[in-house]
Structure formats: structure tokens, C-alpha cells
């Protein structure tokens, strides 16, 4: 997720002599990535990419903590200023509200009654800051909940106190079929398992995602029940996904918030509401599920061995302290306890490696080439074979293309794998042949009248029961605007180069010649070279013979027949044809002697017996 941090707001919590450009550059090297700075000077706003494990940095103050840890590494001054909090008293029970909670749903729930408020416009500063981070100001009661969420990363929700009947609410999992209309006027029918807040038999909050319309703040509101909850992250995530309902708050809750931060956010909001004339009661704190914080033991050797550096243990200690970790050193072992806002993220020694490495600076780690033993090399490489086939086709004028593996239902038969969530009907199935895609590619090239040959080597996906499909590598191609003999000749040459004895097979579809072969089949039949034969000492005799074609004989059959007439007819080439007259070039050869003219004449005589020679 990306968050926006206005520079002026940031500098309320951090006193530093670093410029916005320096903050951007340095923080990106050590902490979250500052993607951009929008605007400049007083209106500069950082756009910060927050990774899912670091939701603690998804706020102005959270980002300030990272800036503070970073600056000393670049010799910049830095002082972290905590936000001003109201020193409110927290109790386990209060008289103004009775809240029933469930530890599995909300490990901590803080709430407070604030009276004496008016729902007028916020101050220009608050409005300006909210707008700078992309939040629309509504009225000062609502705005402060958003302001504190932006500042501290803890979502707050305010109910109109007068709308709460019986002063009793319960926080629970929803049952299937329950309904709620949220603030944005969307009616949701719940699937069960969402977290909801119920009051007097009605749902008033789709918890962690959005408040209910029935309890919202309006112009008549003077008292609010302000809540700072912690919700079970996986339940919020599941609910927002299944209902397709997302909000800034749900994006924070689902990543797992610091339970310790909830009370501070409430105290911060109370401070701000009191500035507006509000009067807060003692707060309620139902804290049932405090997550454990892992204390990690790790040696300096473990860390240095993973980084390829030799840092001193005292340096490691300093880095961790700058990140507000609790550290003690015994011999060469560090005993590290992360702050509560890092409790979910830092649990194993490798996490400590990362913290020390980034503070040391990845740019300071030297680069080393790999050494040591090499893995065993495979004897046969499918990649070399693919390369060979592609090189051959390119040499014959083939143009390689990459078409999509996902195709429409028309491009596959009955037995193909369907995608559950396709982008569209054109890409709903995993293809079972390449030809269909290549024929579409040929159709795309109707504008050309030149002969062309498009080819592709790719996988097709053939279903196999309940298991993984057979991902079969194939080569396929299309010849457009081409003579049949030219297209077939390319495949003949292709097989010749692969030393495969095979008659090429071309299909014709709308005047396009198409071929498709399995690579495994080609690989099985190919030979790296032919067995060598000593060149004959004796010359061959070659002559052209024209034969009258009879209706029942095809050219290929005539060639085979000619070659079968006598062992000394070693090769027959087709030259051309005129009407029904076919001309062949016949090579006579005897490996043991030079053929004499009478001998050749005798063989020719055999031909004349079988065919009408002209």
C-alpha cells in the first residue's frame, strides 16, 4: 500500500536538518521506499510504499520513526517528538456504555464518551492536511478520527452516542444473511464471519471496514462514543474481500495493528476533541488478547555469516537501539526484544539480520562472486534443442512470435482447462494446441501479400485427471501467401537438419499451411549426426526422365516406385511437370564399379516397363 506524508506534518514529529530530497533518498535506502515527492517546499508530499509487514510505518508518526532511525546513518541531525496525548484514565468498566466483546474477534477495544461537541467545519490546517493525504473533510467530529488515523495508523470510529439504545453494544461475528447499510449507502448481505457491532438488535457497524448509516455523525451530534479497536486481521481481510468492501481502515486492520497503539490513538483524539471544547469521560479498555513479543537470541557470527561482513557486536547493538529495540549483550550473543509495534514482524533471528543489515546499509555490503563447488551439469538440455529448432526456422526465413497461452473457447476442444477468474472470454482457456493461435496471428497479417512463415515454440496444457496438466512443448508454424512446395520444402530441410526421416505434414486452413509437432517426439527421433559413409570411388550417372502420369498415381508414389525398381537407382528428384508429363532426375550408382552405358540402359529398360516414359 502507498501512503502520503506531507512534509510539514512530518516535521511536527521530527526535527531534522535533512531536506525533503535527502529524506527521500536516505529513507529509501534504509527503510520504506519513498517513490515520489509531489509538490515542493511547504506543500511537499512524500508518496511512500509501505510493505505488508511494516504497517507500523503506515502513518505520519510511523514514518517519522523510520526517518529518525535513518538520519544518524547519514550524519544528519534528528530528534523525534511524540504527539501530544491527553492523560486519560482507562478503566475496565464504565457507566456510560456496556460493551460485550470476544477475544477472538477483538483482542483490544478502547472507547470513550466525549460530550459537548458541534459538527462544524474543521480548522483550515486540519482540512488542508486531510486534503493533502486524499481524505475529504466532512466535519470536525469525523475529521479528527481520520486525522488521528493518518497520524498514528490506528483507525478510530465515532458513533453518535444518542443513537445507541440501552447503552449496550456487542462486538461479534456476523451470522449468514444478516444485513447492514454502511455509511456509503451500500446495503450488504453478510456471508457470516464478518465482524459486526450490534446495538438493540440492529447492526450499527461493519467493523473494521465501514460504519453503519444508522449511527453516523450528523449536524445534530453533540456526544460521541469514540472507539479505538484492534480486530482479528484475517477476519477483516476475509470480510473485505468477500464483500468487495475496502477502506483505508480495513487496509490497516488486515495487516495486524499494534494492540498497544490503540490507547495512544484514543488519547491523541481526546486531546484534539478537547481543544474543540469537548469533554471526555474516563475511557474504557477491554484488553483480552495481548500478543506475545518474542525475545530473540542471536550471535554476532550468525549475523556476519549471513551478510558477508564483519560488524562489531557494539555496532549491531547501536543499530537495534536506534530502531527502539530492547537489547542486551552477553558475550557474543545479542538478546533482542522488538518494540510492540514490531511484535508481529520480528520473530526469528533472520529478522534481526535484516534490521542490522539495512541499518548498516545494503550499499555498504561488499559484492563477492560465488565460489565453492558447482552443481552437477545435466547431460541433455531441452533448452539447447529449443535453440537449435529456432535457429533452423529463423535460417529458413521463419519469424518467431509469442502468442498467448490463454485462448477463447473456440480455440480449444471439449477437454481443456478453464480459468475460474479470466480477464475476458478471449482468454478463458489454457490452450491445447498452438495452431489455433498462429492461425489468428495469420489473420492479423492479411495486409501483407508477401509470403511469410510465422512460428512458435511453446507449451500446450493437456488435462490429466485431477493432477497437474501435461505441459507439452510444441513447435508450430503457419505459411501465408506461400506455395505448397516452398512451405513443404522448409519442413523437409528442417527434418533433414535434424536427421529425422519423416514426410512433412502440412494442413491447409483458408489457404494457410499449418504444421505442429511435439518437441519430445522430435527430440526422441533426432540424431546429433549421421553415421559417416565413405564417398564412393565410382561416379554416378544422372539423367532426366519424363513419365506420363496416370490418374491413380501421385508424385510421391511414383518416386517411391522408381526408387524400388533397382537398387542401383539411388536417388530420384522431382523436377517439374507439364500437363500430365512429369520430369524426374534419376541417379544411377553402383558402389562397386563404374556403371557402363549398357548397364544404365538396362535399368532404364526396367523403368520403361513400369511407366510410360516419354
Amino acid at each position, binding site marked *: 500500500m502507498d501512503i502520503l506524508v506531507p512534509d510539514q506534518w512530518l516535521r511536527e514529529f521530527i526535527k531534522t536538518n535533512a531536506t525533503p530530497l535527502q529524506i527521500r533518498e536516505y529513507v*529509501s*535506502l*534504509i527503510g*520504506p521506499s519513498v517513490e*515520489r515527492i509531489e509538490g515542493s517546499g511547504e506543500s511537499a508530499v512524500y508518496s511512500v510504499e509501505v510493505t*505488508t509487514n511494516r504497517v507500523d510505518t503506515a502513518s505520519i508518526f510511523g514514518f517519522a520513526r523510520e526517518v529518525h532511525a535513518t538520519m544518524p546513518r547519514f550524519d544528519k541531525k534528528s530528534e523525534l517528538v511524540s504527539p501530544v496525548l491527553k492523560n486519560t484514565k482507562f478503566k475496565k468498566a464504565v457507566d456510560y456504555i456496556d460493551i460485550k466483546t470476544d477475544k477472538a474477534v477483538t483482542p483490544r477495544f478502547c472507547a470513550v464518551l466525549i460530550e459537548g461537541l458541534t459538527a462544524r467545519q474543521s480548522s483550515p490546517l486540519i482540512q488542508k492536511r486531510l486534503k493533502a493525504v486524499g481524505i475529504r473533510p466532512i466535519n470536525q467530529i469525523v475529521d479528527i478520527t481520520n486525522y488521528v488515523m493518518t497520524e498514528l495508523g490506528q483507525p478510530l470510529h465515532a458513533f453518535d452516542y444518542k443513537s445507541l439504545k440501552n447503552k449496550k453494544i456487542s462486538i461479534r461475528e456476523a451470522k449468514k444473511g444478516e444485513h447492514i447499510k454502511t455509511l456509503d449507502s451500500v446495503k450488504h448481505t453478510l456471508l457470516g464471519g464478518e465482524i459486526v457491532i450490534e446495538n438493540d438488535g440492529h447492526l450499527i457497524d461493519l467493523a473494521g471496514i465501514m460504519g453503519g448509516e444508522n449511527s453516523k455523525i450528523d449536524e445534530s451530534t453533540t456526544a460521541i462514543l469514540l472507539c479505538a479497536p484492534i480486530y482479528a486481521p*484475517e477476519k477483516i*481481510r476475509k470480510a473485505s474481500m468477500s464483500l468487495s468492501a475496502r477502506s483505508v481502515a480495513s487496509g490497516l486492520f*488486515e*495487516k495486524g495493528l499494534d494492540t498497544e497503539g490503540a490507547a495512544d490513538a484514543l488519547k491523541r483524539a481526546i486531546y484534539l476533541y478537547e481543544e474543540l471544547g469537548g469533554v471526555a469521560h474516563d475511557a474504557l479498555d477491554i484488553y483480552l488478547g495481548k500478543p506475545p513479543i518474542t525475545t530473540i537470541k542471536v550471535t554476532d557470527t550468525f549475523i556476519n*555469516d549471513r551478510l*558477508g561482513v564483519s560488524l562489531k557486536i557494539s555496532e549491531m547493538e547501536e543499530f537495534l537501539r536506534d530502531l527502539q529495540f530492547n537489547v542486551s549483550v552477553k558475550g557474543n550473543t545479542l538478546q533482542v526484544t522488538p518494540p510492540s509495534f514490531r511484535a508481529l514482524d520480528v520473530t526469528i533471528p*533472520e529478522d534481526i*539480520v*535484516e534490521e542490522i*543489515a*539495512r541499518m548498516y546499509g*545494503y*550499499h555498504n555490503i*561488499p*559484492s*563477492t*562472486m*560465488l565460489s*565453492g*563447488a558447482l*552443481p552437477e551439469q545435466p547431460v541433455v538440455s*531441452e533448452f539447447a534443442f529449443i535453440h537449435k529448432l*529456432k*535457429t533452423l526456422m*529463423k*535460417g*529458413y*526465413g*521463419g*519469424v*518467431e512470435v*509469442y*502468442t*498467448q*497461452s*490463454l485462448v477463447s473457447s473456440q480455440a480449444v476442444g471439449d477437454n481443456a*482447462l478453464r*480459468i*475460474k*477468474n479470466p*480477464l475476458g472470454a478471449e482468454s478463458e482457456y*489454457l490452450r491445447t494446441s498452438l495452431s489455433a493461435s498462429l492461425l*489468428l*496471428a495469420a489473420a*492479423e*497479417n492479411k495486409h501483407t501479400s508477401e509470403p*511469410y512463415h510465422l512460428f512458435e515454440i511453446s*507449451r500446450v*496444457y493437456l488435462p490429466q485427471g*485431477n*493432477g*497437474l*496438466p501435461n*505441459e507439452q512443448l510444441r513447435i508450430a508454424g503457419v505459411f501465408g501467401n506461400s506455395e505448397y512446395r516452398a512451405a513443404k520444402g522448409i519442413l523437409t530441410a528442417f527434418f533433414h537438419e535434424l536427421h529425422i526421416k519423416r514426410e512433412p505434414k502440412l494442413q491447409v486452413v483458408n489457404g494457410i499451411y499449418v504444421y505442429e509437432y511435439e518437441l519430445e517426439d522430435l527430440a526422441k527421433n533426432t540424431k546429433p549426426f549421421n553415421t559417416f559413409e565413405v564417398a564412393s570411388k565410382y561416379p554416378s550417372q544422372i539423367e532426366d526422365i519424363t513419365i506420363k502420369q496416370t490418374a491413380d498415381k501421385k508424385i510421391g508414389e511414383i518416386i517411391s516406385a522408381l526408387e524400388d525398381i533397382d537398387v542401383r537407382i539411388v536417388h530420384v528428384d522431382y523436377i517439374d511437370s507439364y500437363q500430365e508429363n512429369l520430369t524426374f532426375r534419376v541417379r544411377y550408382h553402383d558402389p562397386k564399379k563404374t556403371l557402363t552405358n549398357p548397364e544404365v540402359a538396362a535399368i532404364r529398360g526396367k523403368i520403361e516397363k513400369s511407366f510410360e516414359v516419354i
Partner: protein
Amino acid sequence: MNQELNNIRSEFMALLMDLKTAQELEELRIEYLGRSGKLTQLTKTLKDLPSEERRDAGSLLNETKQIIVRELSEKLAQFSNTASTFDTTVPGILPPMGNMHLITQSIEEIADIFTRIGFIRRSYPEVEGDWYAFEALNMPKEHPARDEWETFFVDKPLHNKLGKLVLTPHTSSGQVREMQAQKPPIRMINIAKCYRRQSDVTHVPMFHQFEGLVIDKGITVSHLKGTIEHFAKSFFGASGVSRIRPYNFRFTEPSFEVDFQCVHCNGRGCKFCKSGWHEVGGAGMVHPNVLRAGGLDPNEYTGFAFGWGVERVSLLRPGLGINDLRTLYSTDLRVLTQF
């Protein structure tokens, strides 16, 4: 007579130098070698010489004649080459000219860069169980990190061992398969098709990634940096510069984002890069849970992995001029024949 022959030879050479046309050359030939040409005339007087002089003069005469004949023919050849009778500007007849796709060219180059330093190229399923695509990579079911991979699901019942069938959203799905297939030392490069539910100028639903995986005793972040640098310099040229920055992936710890310095502006910042750097993808030290999923003991072995986009790194090369990733998946010959 010797003197006379020498004069004829010098005179001929001088005249030859000034010649401009084949016509003049022919005239010169007749003047010297014609039936009443200068040399022919002199030959006729040879018989009048005293016999002792005749032999010497004869051989000199022959020599002179040979020189003149040779010079004339050389000059003629010069004229033929430059004259309109032979037009060297006529275009050659082209052999069939095919094209290897830009993606293939990149894949082969990338494979070569890594096999040079002992990596072995492998391939793994593109349609895979989500156990290999996510769970084995330390992303349990329902983990929000899975959202970052806009995954296509195959409409099939759950497989009892592999879970849901997905189109691999990253080549990292091959990591644990490699660990199961091969004992360390592992140096794998896996270049394959990947699929994500997205389509715009910088994303296509089908694309290619290359995944490196190295596992052995004593593998460090420093080795990862060395390997990234080797790639940057080999692929982008000697001035290729790379850096790593903190990031988060569930299957590596620590995790990095890898940037290559913009080759257009050498890192000063320009319209291609904005910041002087281009993000190409992720990298990191293999998470101990991933090593365990592959049956390896994280106390014994460490490793690194990286996975970057083939199209992404290809388009970063200076002078290529393709700004829209979708161009690579055009089937138009006018595009394909330019690769």
C-alpha cells in the same frame, strides 16, 4: 634500337596516364600495337640488326610488348569497373531472413550470463498447485501477501497434495521443486512464463520471469550483490550499476528490491526513470521456512533467490525504443520483423 624501345615505353606510359575513356585506350592500342603501330614497325626492323644485337633487342622488344599489353588490359579493367557497363549499386539478392523474437534473444542472453557462472537452467510447471506457488514460500492460506500476486485460478477441484491449481504468478514456484530435485550446491536459473490478472502499458497477463536460486553452505548477501552486479554489467554493459534496497517478501529474509541505474541518464534522472533508477524486481536470502519446505536444514544451508521480469529488463536497454510492453506480444509481421 634499345634506346628507341626505352623511349617508346616511356612515351606509352605517359600517354596511358592521361587517358580518360575506353575509346582513347583503343586508339592508343592501335598506335602502338596496331598493324602499323610503333612497336609493330620496330619488330619489322629487327631482322636488319646484326645478329649479336638481334638477340638482346628481341628480348627487350618482347618485354616492352608484354608491358604494354598488360598495362592496356589493366587500364581497360579499370574503365570497365567504373564505367556504366557494370553497376555495382544493384541490390544483392537476399537469402531468406527470419527473426528470433526479442524475448527469445533476451532469454538466451540471460541464460548465458548465468550459466557462465555455474548456474543450471531448469524449467518447472506453469500450471501449479498453490502449495508450491504460495504455502511452501511461507505464504499461508488467506495471507494478505498473496493479494500482491493477481493470480489466475484453474477451474478444477482441489488437489489433495497441491491445493488449488493456479497459473504460476512468479517463477519462485520452482524454488521448492528445485530443492526437492537437487541437493545443494544449488545454482538454478529458471526462465519461464508467468501469469497475472492485469493488463496495461507496463503489465501484460502473460509475461516472463527469470528466477535465480543459490543454496549452499555459507551463502551471503555479499554473494547476492556480486551476482546482481555480474548480471547488470553483462546485460547492460560495463557501466551497468545496480543497488538493493529494503523490501518485504514472505519467502526471503532479508528481502530486497533491486534497482538498475538508468542507462539513458546514468542515474541523473530523466523522463524514462524519473529517479535515476529502475526497479526490476525482488531478491533476498531464502527464508528458513522455505528451506524447510524444501527439506533443507536452515542451520546448515543458506541461500539467495531473485526473480525479475525478462520483458522489463529487455525494455530498459538503451536505444531499443519500445515503451509499451504489449508491443512484445504483437503478432503483426511489421513489428515482429524488426526484432
